[in-house]
């Protein structure tokens, strides 16, 4: 296993991002990782959550890190879709050393979608731990 979080697959969350028609006007937020909340242990909480919202004819998917997490900007987070295509999350606002995102990165999913399925990958770094880990989540 590459990293501790690479072991985390929320199979119970498959297809969990879903909205009701009509989609427009709604914003759907999914807390991807409920680990700390569910385990009963005191911890820093979910490392990331995914937010989807309409963007014209398309869908904006935003990856929001928890306050204790930095997202590695040198390895843009990716959403691998079932058709083999890969969406990369990005934003021009970076930290001064250009190593991390200074605001949540986003990706545009072509077309209107009320749910997102695929594999989410992100390189995440805790603020107080000088290491990076690979985060892999099946949506």
């Amino acid at each position, binding site marked *: 296993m590459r990293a501790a979080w690479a072991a985390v697959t929320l199979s119970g969350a498959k297809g969990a991002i879903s909205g009701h028609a009509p989609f427009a006007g709604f914003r759907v937020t999914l807390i991807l990782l409920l680990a700390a909340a569910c*385990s009963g242990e005191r*911890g820093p909480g979910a490392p990331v959550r995914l937010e989807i919202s309409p963007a014209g004819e398309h869908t904006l998917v935003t990856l929001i890190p928890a306050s204790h997490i930095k997202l*590695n900007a040198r*390895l843009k987070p990716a959403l691998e879709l079932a058709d083999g295509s890969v969406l990369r999350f990005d934003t021009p606002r970076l930290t001064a050393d250009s190593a991390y995102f200074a605001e949540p990165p986003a990706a545009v999913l072509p077309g209107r979608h009320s749910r997102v399925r695929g594999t989410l990958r992100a390189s995440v770094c805790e603020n107080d731990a000088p290491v990076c880990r690979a985060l892999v989540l099946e949506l």
Partner: protein
Amino acid sequence: MHRFALAPLLALSAAAAGGLALETTSRALAQSRQPLLGVREPGPAPSWKNTSWLNAGRPLALEELRGRVVFLNFWVFTCGNCTRTVPSLVDFDRKYRDRGLTLIGIHTPEFPPYAGEHDRSNVERALRQYHIAYPNAQDNDAGTWDLYGIRYWPSFVLIDKRGVIRYEGYGEFHLNDGTYQLWDRRIRELLLE
């Protein structure tokens, strides 16, 4: 803004279907706050099988390095914690190569090939950018990463002249900080044996 209340449903499904994963995550989060440097119970270093090497005329084998102290650095050029540690490693290589230290970078990608970390030319560019002159193995299948049970970028393994793992650790450090000095002492200790 209307917002769906999905969290309770997700919590239930995740708790039901992913209980083990949740426990694993919590343990990992807790472990990340443990001390980053450890003295390892001595044991033989496993032999890596990497075939693609940079800064080396041919693949290096652990067996041919008997009599030298070997310092492995597991890294990837997209990791800021890794690249900020490189100046210290370059310094170790400069100070101790002629005294018997072989520093080896094990370049292990985080993402699949579409991210570019697997490309030899990108690794070569990073070696030039960070003035890395010591050998580096491309560990694109994470074979050596798994062989050594590595979990974090960057990680380190210090192997003595007999091929025995003596120290291991992980985490960014900087020239002349406390962690640098600790690794420096350990390297000198093993060079004197």
